[in-house]
């Protein structure tokens, strides 16, 4: 039986988070707005209108190109892509064809098994979005609110070799886009759209066979599932002597199946030509240097650095570089803590992430600052407070904005580590519960936890757990 290799290329459309559209001053984001309210003569394609390029689109596009190791052209051109569709008011889309902003590029994708998949980029260009249509009762309803929203189209080489890799690519891309601050990259909201080109070939072959195109996948999971199903279909087809045809497939997310869309008998001829209403985009070296200077340390680079410099496990490094705010927070906390970074990592992964989740905020919005976290950890390290108190203290700092030390003093949270004081509490507890003491001594060892709880309650949580355990054990093991 032949072993088949999957060959996947992904075409993504990324909605940039600029304030305005690419060629007019309407808002870029109108997700919640009633239909046809966020329009103007330009984006509605009225007769006589002209496009005017948004400089923030160029800057963000260039940043992405730099982050994808793409060479960005100092002179690039816009072109018209001509076709009829009701959501395309001008009857052409202003895009970039052969002399786009970005030239080449790649993303090195770390896979869970430790390997790296080098994914080449063939296209990186700016273009305008079309509007939206919905189908109802045999008619189409068209909304132009989204016309002219700035997009970057990025197309990979057919370098991905599995549905998982495709999913990984999208995960990393989403992370990168948010990291750079150029897109919210939320697939469910259409900020990041993906079409997958899929073909198969016998393992060892280097030929590129006919591919099918999967459209309308609205989540990373859907991309993965759809690709798996399509590969299954292609393998079955080929194994039974059939031939894969260049179909366009529509993913139905409700029924989890692919249906063939109208096949194009002839390749659409878009009659690309240079957009005469725009001058060639000319950027100078100084501008290019400016963009490169703005390029932050990228998530995968930082991840690698965390693994190396902080000696963190991959699991931790992934979580701590999931987004820029948490990653910056971690580094600041490590610097303030001046101890084992793994300790800080644990506190963040356990306590801080939960806090962020509960409050629906990001790490840069916390009142609890990194240096304050470090201070709390140090207090626990030195035994000033116990672990449980430490965790509660974090919440208190976040709620009140007061410093940890202030709160500890004000509420008298310092740990009870005085031998004599603890011993006296323990004696009190044992004296108050003679039956339980008898049960414990007759073999019910599970009651130990209950006794610990009683001591904690008496000391309002301040008992030093290690010391308490030791003293309590001694006390309970004594035979009168």
């Amino acid at each position, binding site marked *: 039986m032949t072993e088949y290799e999957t060959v996947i290329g992904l075409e993504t459309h990324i909605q940039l988070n600029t304030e305005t559209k690419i060629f007019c001053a309407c808002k870029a984001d109108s997700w919640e707005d009633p239909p046809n309210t966020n329009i103007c003569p330009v984006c509605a394609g009225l007769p006589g209108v002209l496009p005017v390029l948004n400089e923030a689109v160029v800057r963000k596009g260039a940043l992405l190109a730099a982050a994808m190791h793409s060479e960005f052209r100092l002179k690039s051109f816009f072109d018209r892509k001509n076709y009829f569709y009701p959501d395309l008011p001008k009857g052409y889309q202003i895009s970039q064809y052969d002399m786009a902003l970005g030239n080449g590029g790649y993303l090195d994708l770390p896979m869970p098994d430790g390997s790296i998949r080098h994914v080449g980029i063939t296209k990186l260009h700016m273009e305008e979005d079309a509007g939206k249509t919905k189908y109802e009762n045999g008619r189409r309803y068209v909304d132009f609110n989204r016309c002219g929203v700035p997009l970057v189209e990025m197309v990979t080489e057919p370098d991905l070799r599995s549905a998982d890799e495709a999913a990984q690519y999208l995960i990393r891309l989403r992370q990168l886009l948010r990291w750079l601050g150029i897109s919210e990259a939320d697939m469910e909201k259409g900020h990041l759209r993906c079409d997958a080109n899929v073909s198969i070939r016998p393992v060892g072959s280097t030929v590129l066979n006919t591919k099918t195109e999967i459209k309308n996948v609205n989540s990373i999971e859907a991309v993965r599932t759809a690709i798996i199903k399509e590969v299954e279909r292609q393998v079955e087809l080929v194994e039974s002597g059939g031939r894969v045809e260049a179909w366009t497939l529509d993913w139905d997310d409700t029924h989890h199946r692919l249906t063939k869309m109208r096949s194009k008998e002839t390749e659409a001829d878009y*009659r690309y030509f240079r957009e005469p209403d725009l*001058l060639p985009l000319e950027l100078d070296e100084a501008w290019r240097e400016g963009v490169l200077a703005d390029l932050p340390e990228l998530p995968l680079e930082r991840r690698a650095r965390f693994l190396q410099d902080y000696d963190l496990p991959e699991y931790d490094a992934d979580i701590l570089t999931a987004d820029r705010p948490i990653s910056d927070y971690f580094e600041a906390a490590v610097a303030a803590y001046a101890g084992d970074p793994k300790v800080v990592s644990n506190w963040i992964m356990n306590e801080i992430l939960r806090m962020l989740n509960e409050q629906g905020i990001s790490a840069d919005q916390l009142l609890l600052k990194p240096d304050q976290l470090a201070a709390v950890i140090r207090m626990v390290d030195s035994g000033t407070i116990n672990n449980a108190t430490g965790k509660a203290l974090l919440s208190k700092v976040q709620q009140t904005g007061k410093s940890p030390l202030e709160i500890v003093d004000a509420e008298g949270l310092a740990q009870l580590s005085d031998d004599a004081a603890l011993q006296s509490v323990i004696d009190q507890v044992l004296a108050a519960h003679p039956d339980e003491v008898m049960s414990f001594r007759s073999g019910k060892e599970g009651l130990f936890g209950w006794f610990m709880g009683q001591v904690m309650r008496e000391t309002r949580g301040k008992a030093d757990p290690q010391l308490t355990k030791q003293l309590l054990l001694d006390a309970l093991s004594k035979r009168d």
Partner: protein
Amino acid sequence: MSALDYAAHTIAQKVNAGELSAVEVLEDALARIEQVEGRHGALDYGELTDEDRKKVHAFITLTQDRAYAQARQVDALVSAGKLAGPLAGVPLSIKDIFCVKDTPSTAASRILSNFVAPYTATAVERLESAGALTLGKVNLDEFTHGSSTESSAFQPSTRNPWDPDRVPGGSSGGSAASVAAGEVMLSLGTDTAGSIRQPAAFCGVVGLKPTYGRVSRYGLIAFGSSLDCPGSVARDVRDAALMLGVMAGADPRDSTASLHPVPDYLAILSEGVKGLRIGLSPDYMQIAFPDPQTGALIRQELPAEIRNATLRAAEALADQGAEIVEGVPMPNMVYGIPAYFVVSRVEAASNLHRFDGVKYGYRTSSEFRDLHEMYRKTRAEGFGLQPKLRILMGMYVSAAQYSEQYYQRALRVRSMIRADFESAFDSGGAYRLDALLTPTTPTTAFKIADIYGDSVLMQYADQLTVPANHAGIPGISIPAGLDGDGLPIGIQLLAPDFGEEMLLRVGYAFEQATADAAWRKQKPQVLR
């Protein structure tokens, strides 16, 4: 005496000085329109009457209310001791290819016959802010596709005020005719292959095509986006200069509007032509038409009267101290029309994609099963013959498999046409011209229905004007006499990029030198 017999600059002066009220001027304009206009162009025009055949029919829509409101505002400002603008009270017509808010903006096409623009073109905004009175939208070839105004869906199409059996030229026929007939003093036209200059020549008025990018195209319903230029149609050179000064300059709504500073065009007007080098080119002193069978170019002599008018103009300028430089080669100008057939059509086909019955304008009222059928019927019914030709040709020459052979080649020929001008104007070159003098058109105004139907012959009416559009340089047509049939002859001056000052200066000198010429005393037939 009608106020309409004054030049625009005189009217503005008098109105600002309180000697004349804008409302008075407006009423004179309306009276003149009443006298010469006949019925306006309309979609359902029925039969042409004998009366129709004697009238001008420059307008599609008269915007009387708008003009009255403007006139009252001008008068109010003047009464309050304020200046009402450099065009205060000047009657103005707008080629109906410009969007003007709350007016029907039709492009002389059925497909936009019911379109009321929600915004105003920049050029119009500026003219209106300068105090001009917008009398209305004037007729043109449909989507500016033509050289005679005959292709308009709004009939009767405009007739030449000098001989109403003849065309006024096109595509800005309504503009040129409305100025020539004294219905307005100024008209805003557009020039893509000669569409201001050619009708100006046919109608005996001044037509100025500025440098590409000199005047904003925002609001101009596009034909050839890299060729279209809004420009002035006026009675004399000073008026054309005045109008240009108001409209010209950068516009944040047009990415192709140059930031090149706008000079005071009136300041240099009377500087004269002493020492200026004005060229004559043998390539512009003959005409060419393609053989209908083979397409090979057959060269012919210019009609004698046009040739002589041009040479006499050279003499007049020489008398004023200009140096006439003969024999300037412009070998690539003869490819102007073939290149134009390609470049303009590619842009037009794309620009007209948006007319599909979805968001504005005409939608077919016949039955349709689906979207594609709606598109087809709407476009087939909404567009006239000329847009259809341009769209189809545009599709062909930009198709993937033909694009290199046609479109890309044409764009390179365009560079060659431009290079001819660069050599001629090069201050370190062999000719070092300040301006080039040529005839504007290969013939004077032809008879209505004579040429329409032969799309090649019609396009070749622009052979002397189109090279300037390819090159982007400015050009002006000024009246230089009348032919044996009493029809106006125009001469053309061409200058380097942003050389409008030069054109106006030389044109003004010629005007002054011929101020007393007998032909200047003749009036168009409709005004006799």
